[in-house]
């Protein structure tokens, strides 16, 4: 299917690769379907989480484990149910970035990761009880 993206014009996206957020993304609850675009090459971060239904919202996302190796968190029973995952399910984690004019000041939200059930392509943004930062630096130390 063709989608209109915020940053890359019209793009062709395989329908089977659309990710569904049953509860939307926090603050953007009305948008439930997103495509994960990799403009820098297959599986190369940062990637773009683009709403399928409209140009916006669109989020730049990173793999938080690539930047913060010891990053880890628990997923509550309720969230596991929503995502239809258990300890053995394949899932991946994305961190939403704020990209300012000076890219070196880019930060990612470690407190509210997006967890994607990669088998069923269901995702949710969860708020951790662990006290990670909402704005953790990507390219330079705090």
């Amino acid at each position, binding site marked *: 299917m063709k989608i209109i993206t915020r*940053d890359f014009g019209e793009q062709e996206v395989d329908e089977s690769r659309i990710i569904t957020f049953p509860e939307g*993304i*926090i*603050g*953007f609850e009305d948008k439930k379907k997103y495509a994960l675009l990799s*403009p*820098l*090459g297959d599986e*190369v971060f*940062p990637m773009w989480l683009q709403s399928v239904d409209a140009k*916006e*919202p*669109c*989020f*730049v996302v990173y793999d938080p484990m690539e930047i913060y190796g010891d990053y880890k968190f628990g997923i509550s029973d309720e969230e596991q149910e929503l995502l239809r995952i258990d300890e053995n399910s394949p899932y991946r984690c994305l961190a*939403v*970035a*704020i*990209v*300012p*004019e000076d*890219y070196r000041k*880019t930060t990612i*939200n470690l*407190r*509210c990761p997006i967890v994607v059930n990669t088998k069923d392509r269901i995702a949710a*943004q969860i*708020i951790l009880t662990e006290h990670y930062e*909402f*704005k953790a630096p990507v390219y330079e130390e705090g």
Partner: protein
Amino acid sequence: MLVVTRKTDESVIIADNIEITVLEIGKDKVKIGINAPKEVKVIRSELKDARQTNEQAAHASGSAIAELLKQHKQEEN
């Protein structure tokens, strides 16, 4: 900030119609109950921060995105 000390099952009342009760005191957390009129919105403070952070994230400028892409493409080469 008004600071009051409360024990389990004790409460405070705000503006006559909002009652906040301490239900349980654990080692490093407390469970509180809130009785408020339906029109009073109660959210965990993290949710407000989460919303604001997402809002900022969704508003990257075209030039900031272009610069980020340029930097990463240079890195590859």
